């Protein structure tokens, strides 16, 4: 049976935790709004770029460029995007579990795999399991810029063209809403152009290229990879803030419930103490008679 003082101490401690979670929730909410704006602003660019690229690829044929051509793939690079900080619910464990299973599955299917991670959580996860990582990037979240994506894309494209791996898969959290994030495994390389309506291709007929179709492709394709990585980074940033907001909201609510329960217990214990004291007083008076 905890004493009155013990209960009181617990109430105070839960209360201060609640204050922290509440503050974190507010911070996440405001960061979420910013991250959400950024991803909504960035999506049209990524989509437009993809459609320009797809129609171009459609007209020039797939084998024209090394980033488009399919190779008989035996080595797969898995690029996992996680967060740097925790306290965001099951976000990281979901994605890491998916990535881990994906890696195992591919290994079972006789592929060679290599893993690269973005974000501290992913790095720690694979390090703990003694799975070697090809490359890691940490400390990006919260201040993602296009040049971060450029740096990562350059590394990926360089190693891809040097045939260090034949396929690149991107694993990240897609931002659906503050409540909802979805783990996505997406093939980044070789680039799979979207199916363009045949009619549209015919409708456009002869295209003029400046300087030339292959030169445009040469610059457009690496750029596309940059943009896709940039988008994925922003998606996972928004997911992180959303997940953290939800997690902290739950924590605050749990703390509230806990405080209510403890307060009830505290009152009960206090009442019991008062009753006991009364009984003693009455008992004492009775004995004096």
């Amino acid at each position: 049976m905890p004493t009155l003082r013990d209960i009181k101490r617990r109430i105070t401690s839960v209360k201060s935790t609640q204050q922290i979670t509440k503050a974190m929730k507010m911070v996440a909410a405001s960061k979420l709004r910013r991250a959400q704006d950024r991803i909504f602003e960035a999506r049209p660019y990524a989509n437009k770029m993809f459609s320009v690229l797809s129609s171009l690829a459609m007209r020039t044929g797939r084998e024209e460029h090394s980033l488009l051509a399919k190779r008989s793939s035996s080595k797969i690079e898995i690029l996992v995007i996680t967060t740097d900080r925790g306290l965001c619910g099951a976000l990281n464990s979901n994605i890491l579990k998916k990535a881990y299973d994906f890696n195992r599955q591919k290994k079972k299917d006789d592929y060679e795999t290599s893993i690269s991670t973005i974000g501290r959580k992913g790095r720690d996860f694979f390090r703990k399991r003694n799975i070697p990582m090809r490359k890691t990037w940490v400390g990006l979240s919260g201040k993602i810029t296009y040049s971060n994506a450029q740096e990562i894309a350059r590394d990926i494209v360089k190693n891809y063209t040097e045939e260090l791996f034949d396929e690149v898969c991107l694993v990240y959290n897609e931002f659906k809403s503050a409540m909802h994030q979805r783990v996505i495994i997406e093939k980044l390389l070789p680039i799979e152009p979207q199916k363009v309506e045949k009619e549209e291709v015919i409708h456009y007929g002869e295209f003029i290229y400046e300087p030339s179709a292959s030169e445009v492709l040469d610059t457009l394709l690496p750029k596309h990879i940059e943009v896709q990585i940039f988008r994925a980074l922003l998606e996972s940033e928004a997911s992180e803030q959303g997940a953290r907001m939800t997690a902290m909201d739950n924590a605050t609510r749990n703390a509230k419930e806990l405080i209510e329960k403890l307060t009830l217990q505290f009152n009960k214990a206090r009442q019991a103490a008062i009753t006991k004291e009364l009984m003693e007083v009455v008992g004492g008076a009775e004995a004096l008679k």
Partner: protein
Amino acid sequence: MADKLFLEIVTPYRLVLSEEVDEVVAPGLEGEFGVLPNHTPFLTILKLGEMSYRIGNERWFLVLNRGYAEVGPEKVIILAEGCERAEEIDIERALAAKKRAEERIAIVERKAEEIDIERARASLIRALLRIEVANKKRPT
């Protein structure tokens, strides 16, 4: 037959513009080009430079930092790394950037320090361009 062009300018950071216009002028890799409605489809790389579009008799200017333009008979899609409307340009900042770049170039010319001169030059060009475009703010 279309008599208007649908112009869309997107950058990684935002959708800059989405509007019906009459004419577009943009800095292609092989020279500046103008687009009127019913242009032959073409695709080009864009370099750093000034671009403009016209609605009726009003002309609007923007600074464009590298990208691509896809031109169709009824639409122009511009994918740029960066793009600012003339009225959005912060002249103070551009002037500061110009001064900084000039100082850096001066340092290199005195051979005092090894700095990436190409980068300094590029930022000088960007700053000059911004100032120039910002001064055209008034639609002509």
